[in-house]
């Protein structure tokens, strides 16, 4: 469903991605590993279309993602290093906007997703008063709410406690059970069934 072929990316004079290719199929999680600076974040950003690769192609449902960017982006939920939340708004307000610009969403749905990620208790406080881990839980609720078949997660477990790490694994598992596809960059091992993983180590050579 998601096919990445022969990606080459240069950042300045550094050759970050050297011919990365893989294929993601529904129900599988592509697990990107590699040391710091190996290009995990860059690869995720290239797939999302935030970065332009010098060479190679990303295709989604058999079509280049550059052909119909809006259609591809409607199918995609991206969570980067920073949770994309506004400090002066509450979790509820943030999600109503973030998810709302993609699809119509009700307050009850948002509440349910916040409960699912353990963020219900602090959902009426301005986000700037939350800890980094709490913010991440709110952002994860946004990913769940997007109902996108493709998740691009960059270090989804950062700042999360042990419970939170389990939560991320559960969420990914649920997404895979729905025949969704996940591409995740990780540093820690993830408690996911071996059969659902497509491991990809970057910068190994």
């Amino acid at each position, binding site marked *: 469903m998601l096919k990445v072929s022969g990606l080459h990316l240069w950042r300045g004079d550094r050759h970050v991605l050297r011919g990365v290719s893989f294929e993601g199929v529904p129900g599988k999680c592509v697990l990107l590993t590699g040391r710091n600076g190996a290009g995990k974040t860059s690869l995720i950003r290239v797939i999302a279309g935030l*970065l332009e690769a010098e060479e190679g192609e990303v295709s989604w449902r058999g079509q280049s993602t550059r052909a119909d960017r*809006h259609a591809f*982006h409607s*199918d995609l939920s991206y969570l980067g290093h920073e949770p*994309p939340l506004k400090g002066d708004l509450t979790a509820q*307000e943030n999600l109503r906007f973030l998810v709302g610009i993609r699809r*119509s969403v009700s307050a009850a749905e948002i509440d349910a997703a916040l409960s699912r990620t353990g963020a219900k208790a602090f959902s009426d406080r301005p986000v700037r008063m939350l800890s980094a881990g709490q913010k991440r839980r709110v952002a994860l609720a946004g990913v769940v709410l997007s109902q996108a078949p493709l998740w691009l997660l960059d270090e989804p477990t950062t700042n999360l406690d042990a419970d939170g790490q389990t939560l991320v694994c559960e969420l990914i598992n649920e997404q895979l059970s729905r025949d969704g596809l996940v591409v995740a960059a990780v540093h820690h091992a993830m408690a996911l069934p071996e059969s659902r993983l497509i491991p990809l180590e970057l910068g190994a050579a």
Partner: protein
Amino acid sequence: MKTSPLAAAGLVVVRDLRLAFRKPSQLMQPLVFFLIVATLFPLSLTPEMSRLRDAAPGVLWISALLSSLLALEFLFREDAMDGTLEQFALSGQSLTWMLFAKTCTHWLFTGVPLALAAPVAAAALGVPGEAMWGVVASLALGSFALSLVGAVSAGLTLGARRGGVLLSLLTLPLAVPILIFGARATELAITGGDLAGPMYLLGAIAVLGVTLAPLAAAAAVRIGLE
């Protein structure tokens, strides 16, 4: 169900207005700056009302221009820093359209208050009461055009670490036509002439801005996100 472009734009407007009212200091700064700069002139130039009145169009417009530069800095910067701009780009909505909605909202809480506060500064410069509507109208239209032109520069300077000066350098030359026609309209309002001519030209610039600026801003923001 996928959100319609109109509903998405509505969400942008509501969110940005809500944010603006939760942080009133950011809202007030450019406005207070405008009023202070404009009222410094009577103190430094001359107390003679007739001479002040001659200088009033230039003073009002240059103060408005500088104040709008101050406000432009906030247009995209915070959204770029906390990653919401990335989410705009990946939302499946047209980035051009989303940035247009954002720029219009920005004008609503910077340009409109500035135009509405202008009579205070204008009165200090000896502008007669009957000319006020012309002052307000020309500043409202002109600041809309300025917001649009500024959106392109704000997008271009996203990647720059200290974008403030660069933003001014990029915006000011582009703002010259707006300054010329705006000041002319204000002058005609003060002298009791017909200001339709320069107002039409300001309107034309605004229309040109509506057509092209969001496209250019979206292209600039995409580069800035890399």
